[in-house]
């Protein structure tokens, strides 16, 4: 039947946050209400600071073998 395996999968992006006190960047799954350049109150896993700025929201792509194939064509 049409919608099989790979196609049914919903792309879920990651949210990348930069700590405002130590500048470490870490990521977590996207949560509703997140937006790029938005500031959120979340604990930094490294220094414990509690303000972070969202620097990116995107779907992480696996390193593809396709890329190598493309070069031959």
């Amino acid at each position, binding site marked *: 039947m049409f919608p099989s395996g790979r196609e049914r999968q919903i792309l879920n992006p990651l949210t990348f946050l930069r700590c405002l006190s130590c500048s470490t960047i870490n990521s977590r799954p*996207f949560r509703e209400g997140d*937006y790029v350049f938005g500031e959120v109150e979340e604990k930094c896993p490294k220094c414990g600071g509690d303000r972070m700025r969202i620097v990116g929201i995107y779907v992480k792509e696996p390193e593809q073998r396709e890329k190598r194939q493309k070069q031959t064509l």
Partner: protein
Amino acid sequence: MQIAGQGDLLTSLIQLVWLLFLMIFILYPNFSQRLQLSYILRDLERKLYGLKRIREEVRSRVIETLRKYSDGNVDLEKEVDQILLSFAITPESMDPYGIVYKLEHIVNTWEDTFEENVRRLCPKADRERAKTLTNLVEVARGIDYLYRVVRHYYLLGKKTSNIYIVLQIQMLMPQLMEIAEAYRQACYAFMQGQPVGDGVGVLAAAKLVEGLEKKTYEVAKDTIVHELMMDGKKLFVLRAAGPGGTVGKPADGIIKIIENEGERVKAIVMIDAALKLEGEDTGKVVEGIGAAIGGIGVDKFKIEEIAKKYNIPLYALVIYESIGEAITPMKESIAKAAEEVVERVKSIIRSKVEEGASVIIAGIGNTVGIGLS
């Protein structure tokens, strides 16, 4: 040696079958076509069923999402179905003079009405949220329309047994199914307000001015501009306001800036996502000349007109992506391209604009999930 009779009988039988086949093809020349028609119809039916499932899924997700922001006084299902069937009539082109402005008028009214309807259904949604919800309903409308068109050709072909009708729609089916799947993904992205691939132009414009001292104000409906100095040049960085989903009115913004700045504007740099060809890498940044903006053409026309009037060169920077990638959550390669675009824009400004002059940089695209930097 031969076993009497038996071999002969078999041969005769086979000959008879062949003869029958021959007769069918001679007396009934359409036989092979009929056979093919029924195969195609069955194939179409299966795909149409898949399309219907996607449409139902999107429709129910949309209603579910709208319900969160509704006050419960309206029959959401009925209202949404009504919005899905709404339409706009393009202006008469027999006499094309002034058609762009007529089209603009109709599209503006249509967009405003659409947004108003969504707001009416979702009184609990704030301004930004309402914009994203409007996008969401547009996605539902897109897939609904796609389904109805394919169903039309399927039923018409079946009713008239016309193989040429079903052949045409069958040929398009692979691309249409891809678009349908993209709509499905887009529905989830807009439900949660995630940035989509089309937003890369806006993202690049936002990254260009991130952390710099600037004056920010609204220049046209849903469109903001950051005014700042960079290497002795005055930059007007224009984009749609976020993080609600909107594309703004870039042409109106550019016109207003040029009318204020006059001859001082020496370049317009436009950044937008562009359709890649199959085999090309997603997120590739390419430079060109012209107004890089999609849509129905009103903005493109107006930007070209004002650029010609003031003799300002139009530089285009596009980021390659597929039609599906444009409306589904942004991919890493596209997000990374935004940083490359920033460098390219800076190099264009360095090489093409002299000190003391002004330059407009327009990030085109949907701002869903992209706030102000």
